[in-house]
């Protein structure tokens, strides 16, 4: 039986894995231990959310993975796609909390920015950008400048820019943190569709438990500083999911309250 390879098969092996073994991050000058002996194994194609109180080192972990931290601050074994973190790693697509759109670029040019920097040929990157803009619901806005877009639309462009890259690992740092509840739900649906289509690994940082539960395969709960993993909860909800429908699902609320109590324990509140 001949089967066409699915995207997940293409990224088998080390391509989309993220592996942490007793990883610590200490900013010695400030005397701050940001992350304390974190071990984590993310499989290729897995959607993992990391939740925790602010200042628990969530973003620090992502920055480490992206090679943005100085080597002297880091200890332990960290492997991204089987390799130690390095700046500009093409296996990684990083999405920041703020959209970081270039105001002087049109929607289309912004969506193409990442592929342009990574040297994807013009026709190919144009094709991908147009496709993704359609996926995120921005068809017809290709020539608009960011100033004409709403916050939600801008974040859609950022999503398109991130998914235009062919990196097997997506690092997302609270990308929907600044959006209102309705827009957030819409964008979560869009993200899930994109993820289900490509089967790439997503590490998603958030402080919104509901967001984490509704999208992820696993939710990692971190404690207040120094950041430690206090719980690793598999989300047993089926796929494909609808974020909207889940809001009324009792199993969703069970998982939500379970993780919430883990989080409170981690913050030393209970």
């Amino acid at each position, binding site marked *: 039986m001949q089967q066409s390879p699915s995207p997940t098969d293409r990224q088998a092996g080390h391509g989309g894995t993220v592996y942490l073994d007793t990883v610590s991050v200490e900013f010695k000058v400030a005397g701050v231990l940001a992350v304390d002996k974190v071990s984590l194994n993310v499989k290729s194609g897995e959607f993992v959310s990391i939740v925790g109180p602010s200042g628990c080192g969530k973003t620090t972990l992502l920055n480490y993975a*992206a*090679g*943005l931290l100085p080597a002297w601050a880091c200890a332990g074994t960290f492997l991204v796609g089987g390799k130690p973190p390095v*700046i*500009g*790693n*093409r296996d*990684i697509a*990083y999405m*920041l909390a*703020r959209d*970081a759109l*270039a*105001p*002087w*670029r049109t929607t289309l040019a912004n969506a193409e*920015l*990442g592929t*342009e*920097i*990574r040297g994807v040929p013009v026709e190919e990157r144009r094709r991908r950008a147009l496709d993704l803009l359609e996926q995120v619901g921005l068809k017809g806005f290709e020539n608009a*400048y*960011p*100033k004409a877009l709403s916050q939600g639309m801008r974040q859609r462009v950022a999503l398109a820019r991130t998914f235009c*890259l062919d990196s097997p690992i997506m690092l997302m740092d609270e990308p929907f943190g600044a959006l209102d509840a309705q827009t957030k739900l819409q964008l979560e649906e869009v993200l899930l569709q994109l993820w289900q289509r490509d089967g790439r690994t997503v590490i998603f940082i958030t402080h919104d438990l509901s967001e984490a539960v509704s999208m992820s395969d696993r939710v990692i709960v971190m404690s207040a500083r120094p950041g430690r993993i206090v719980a690793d909860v598999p989300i047993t909800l089926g796929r494909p999911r609808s974020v909207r429908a889940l809001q009324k699902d009792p199993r969703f609320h069970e998982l939500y309250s379970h993780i919430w109590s883990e989080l409170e324990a981690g913050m030393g509140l209970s």
Partner: protein
Amino acid sequence: MNDVTWSPLKIWSWRLVIIGAFFGLWEWSSATGVLKPILVGRPSGIFKYIFSALFVTGELYRDFAYTLTSILSAFVVGSASGVLVGMLFITRPNIEALMSPIMLALNSMPRIALAPLFLIWFGLGMGSKIALGFSLTFFIVLTNTVAGGRSVNPDHITLARTLGASETQIFSKFVLPSAVPVIFNGLRLGLVFALLGVIASEIFASDHGIGQILALYGASFKTNSVFGIIFMLAAIGVGINLGMTALENRLLRWR
């Protein structure tokens, strides 16, 4: 404030009323001798002079051409080197750390006081005029270029680095485009300073040029002619500024 926004028609009418009242009062006071015409001039005399200079005698064209050439040269050379040095400072922070106090000291010198030196060094002709205009334009454009380079969004830099952008890519795709609006402010000011420097230097000493004519008419109490020339210079300044605004709106449509 609960004011309704005035219509352009209303704004223009009132503007004309204010200007008309000002000139009317001026005309009346010098006609009746409340103010001495030899000191403050007289609007009708001023417009008579402008008309004859432009359409009858044509006495100013050559000098205007001379002065405008100096201004344009000072502006082009001054702003081009200001932008270039500014970019060098942005991309090489060490050079900036080394040079910026020296630049600050140079920029703090009263440039008009250098006019006599420039005359000795570069002669009575255009050279000394361009030098003074340059010395003003260069620094204002330099300061704005550096400020523009600093205005880059840190998120853009983080994004660029995670994408593996080279230094050249970071500069051309992020630093430069975000600096352009601020550089434009510098260019606008730079042009005004080029005009100032050139005219001042011409008033000081020159073989040709509007500033020299101004000095001559001023010394011989031809007040109407002095005002006439100043009005024409103001009109040129407004025209150049409108041109800059049009160019800016074209280049910076995204704002």
